[in-house]
């Protein structure tokens, strides 16, 4: 019998509900994290899509940013999609003045890299490490960031495979951290969340 870890979803703003649902499909229990106390009770954390500038601002206003950084430094597994990727990046290009992140992934991300909403798109993505990796994943990109550079400690797990943005890095992971430019929580395919739950079980 596999363990059922309790995984928090940072509930400042954004696609919280969808991640909770995806966790249910992936052998974990999802719970909201809005406060430091709630953060202390989870085995891992998902940072959802939304507006990274809003999440940063409110995380600092309510004294959550330092506890988030401490938890990450202490090895708490974290997965960020879209804005969540920006929150986990060490360096942000196109940030608003004074914008901060939790950091931890040795990457530089470009905010809104593909352009505005009329450039948001779907495309099939091959992701390393998920179940049935040869089977494409439905990549949903909404005003999405991409990774400009990834350090040596960071594995690239997904790239755009065709079109004008071919070769752009849209998925990365390290030992305890994972981030995607796209929104696996907006699909019915649980494989990315399953990979994260596996990372949590192994941590």
């Amino acid at each position: 019998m596999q363990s059922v870890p309790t995984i928090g979803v940072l509930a400042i703003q954004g696609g919280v509900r969808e991640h909770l649902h995806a966790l249910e499909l992936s052998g974990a229990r999802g719970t909201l994290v809005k406060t430091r106390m709630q953060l202390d009770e989870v085995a891992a954390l998902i940072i959802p899509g939304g507006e990274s500038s809003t999440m940063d601002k409110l995380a600092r206003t309510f004294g959550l940013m330092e506890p988030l950084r401490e938890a990450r430094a202490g090895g708490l597994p974290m997965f960020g999609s879209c804005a969540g990727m920006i929150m986990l990046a060490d360096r942000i290009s196109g940030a608003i003045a004074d914008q901060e992140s939790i950091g931890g992934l040795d990457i530089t991300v470009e905010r809104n890299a593909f352009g505005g909403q009329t450039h948001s798109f779907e495309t099939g993505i091959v992701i390393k490490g998920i179940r049935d990796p040869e089977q494409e994943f439905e990549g949903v990109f909404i005003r999405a960031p991409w990774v400009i550079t990834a350090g040596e400690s960071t594995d690239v797990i997904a790239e755009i495979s065709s079109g004008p943005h071919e070769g752009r890095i849209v998925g990365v992971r390290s030992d305890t951290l994972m981030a995607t430019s796209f929104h696996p929580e907006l699909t019915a395919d649980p494989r990315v969340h399953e990979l994260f739950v596996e990372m949590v079980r192994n941590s």
Partner: protein
Amino acid sequence: MSSEISTGTSRVKRGMAEMLKGGVIMDVVNVEQAKIAEDAGAVAVMALERVPADIRAEGGVSRMSDPDMIDAIRAAVSIPVMAKVRIGHFAEAQILESLGVDYIDESEVLSPADYANHIDKWKFTVPFVCGATNLGEALRRLTEGAAMIRSKGEAGTGDVSNAVTHMRKIRSEVLRLSSMAPDELFVAAKELQAPYDLVAEVARTGSLPTVLFTAGGIATPADAALMMQLGADGVFVGSGIFKSGNPAERANAVVQATMHYDNPDVIAKVSRGLGEAMVGINVADIPVHHRLEDRGW
């Protein structure tokens, strides 16, 4: 699914609105206000020439904003920029799409261009948000291709009562559908004047298939908390912020109250010392034919 690139899909349009949940979208009329909104943690701004309170005070025909003004705001902020078109005015929508705005609000706050038809929103790559006073109206807008619904309040008043009425109405109609027997849904569709398939989907899932924000008359952090507790996914604030005494403080407070809408200690704290709220007009004092919420059909 293939490795081809598809833009303007329903999932991308509705998904964009999902990412705004729990956030505040603020009306702004210039770059300075847009920056204040972004700094306060707004998830998007609505660029328009006059906020509803001024449209109401000044009267006349109210139209899409000048493209120069929209471009200036798009250049000044990194959060999504929305803009309004008149109901049925698809040429204004074509212009906004060509400018590259992130969302179009087909809005009753502007003067309607078509008193029979709304825009065929399926034709556009850019997503649309539309207002609704009841479930039937919301479902008709979704049928036309809207990817996000906001309840209508009475914009430009600072009176939250109509926003409450419409949010409660939509929520209770959804609940009613979800408790009905399958063979009653055909008549329900007829009564709601909405397609059966959408009515059956709402009945099965117990919710709208898109995000439902609130709008119209929200002026205080407590108003935002009230609407969130009534089931709004997020908040549009029009005149309430920049018609108040201290816009930056109030913008911060409304954003914080929207995140912690179920925590009265936080709402109490952020409600202190905000200065004058917008003056406000009681909806009951507005002649019926001057009410904006009745526009749209």
